[in-house]
């Protein structure tokens, strides 16, 4: 369970201040998988980083009654000068997981081959995403935060990710940002809409989706 209590977040851009959350109090209950919708630039990635704790809120408190993952996104959480396996060892160490097991798991899952022992700088975007995905799965989190990285690799690898997550979702929850409606329906049973600094939660994905379409049409 993740509770937001009076959370505000504003960030400054060249063009001015942008409000992502304005005094938001919601609860992401345990046992449910949330899909987060929002138009481009609404701050979905910022929200994910706030939930993870990678960024601090300007006001308010975020309480995590669960082991929450690092944000799994295209940004990457790896040090470019270190190899894939060294990065996995680092992440496993700071999360208190077994380093040996994590490395073995990621090596097998990511299918990076000899690249696994080469610096992450030399990876393609897809290889980084595979490494991040596998590393996240290698550690047992209660809640996985995923930011638009479900479409990685080829058909077969994607299938493997879906299967792995399906299996993991028996005991863990996910909070997912994606523009792909099909992916959302596949993973999520609840929806959330982020717009104009407000975060609204919905008990089912269909309601959230129809609300979201209405919102997009209004703003268009």
């Amino acid at each position, binding site marked *: 369970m993740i509770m937001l209590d009076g959370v505000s977040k504003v960030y*400054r851009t060249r063009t001015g201040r942008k409000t992502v959350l304005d005094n938001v109090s919601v609860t992401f209950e345990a046992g449910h998988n949330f899909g987060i919708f929002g138009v481009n630039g609404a701050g979905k*990635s*910022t929200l994910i*980083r706030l939930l*993870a*704790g*990678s*960024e*601090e809120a*300007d006001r308010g408190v975020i309480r995590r009654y669960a082991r*929450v993952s*690092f*944000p799994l996104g295209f*940004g*990457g*959480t*790896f*040090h*470019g000068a270190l190899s894939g396996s060294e990065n996995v060892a680092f*992440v496993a160490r*700071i*999360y208190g997981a077994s380093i040996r097991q994590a490395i073995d798991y990621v090596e097998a899952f990511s299918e990076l081959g000899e690249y696994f022992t080469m610096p992450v700088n030399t990876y393609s975007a897809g290889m980084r995403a595979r490494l991040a995905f596998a590393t996240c799965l290698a550690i047992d989190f209660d809640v996985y935060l995923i930011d638009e990285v479900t479409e990685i690799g080829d058909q077969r690898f994607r299938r493997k990710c879906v299967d792995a997550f399906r299996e993991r979702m028996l005991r863990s929850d996910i909070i997912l940002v994606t523009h792909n409606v099909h992916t959302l329906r596949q993973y999520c049973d609840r929806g959330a809409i982020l717009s104009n600094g407000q975060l609204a939660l919905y008990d089912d994905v269909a309601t959230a989706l129809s609300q979201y379409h209405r919102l997009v049409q209004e703003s268009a």
Partner: protein
Amino acid sequence: MTYAISSNGSLLQLPLVSTFDVLMARGLLEFFTDTLVAVLLLAGFGAVGLGVLPHNLSGVSASVLVVWLFGCGCGFINAVVNAFSKSWDKIWVQLTRLLYFCSGIFYVPGMMPDWIRDILAWNPVLHAVDWFRSSFFQEYDPHWLDRSYLTIVAVLTLLAGFGLERGLRRRLYEPL
């Protein structure tokens, strides 16, 4: 340490890694690297028969430790300033060059006219160099050396650096 935040941007995405961690880690890394280099250099001198053992090892250690604290303080401040003003590192290089020149490494303060030394004694680096020197060589006993001045400056700098980092932590790096 100035670049610790920008060069570790991706690691900062991990919630468990904060800007304080990467700065402190870089500070420790610099400490161990420089200590190792110093020991290797001195061992090299020793190997060719030069006297390399300090007469007061605890004094040497204390001076190195205080200088390191001072350096960490400067590092924290620089990292914060550099996050807001991208050319600060260039200015800092020039500033430190000035401080080095005025720290009595080329001209021993004992050979300076009193009025110049009185001015240069405001430079904490000068006290750092002379503290180290006086612990290394027994016959070197500078009366202008003020260990507490350097210590106070180091502690204040470190507190200022910690305070700046804590206060501005949210704005120190742009998310990727």
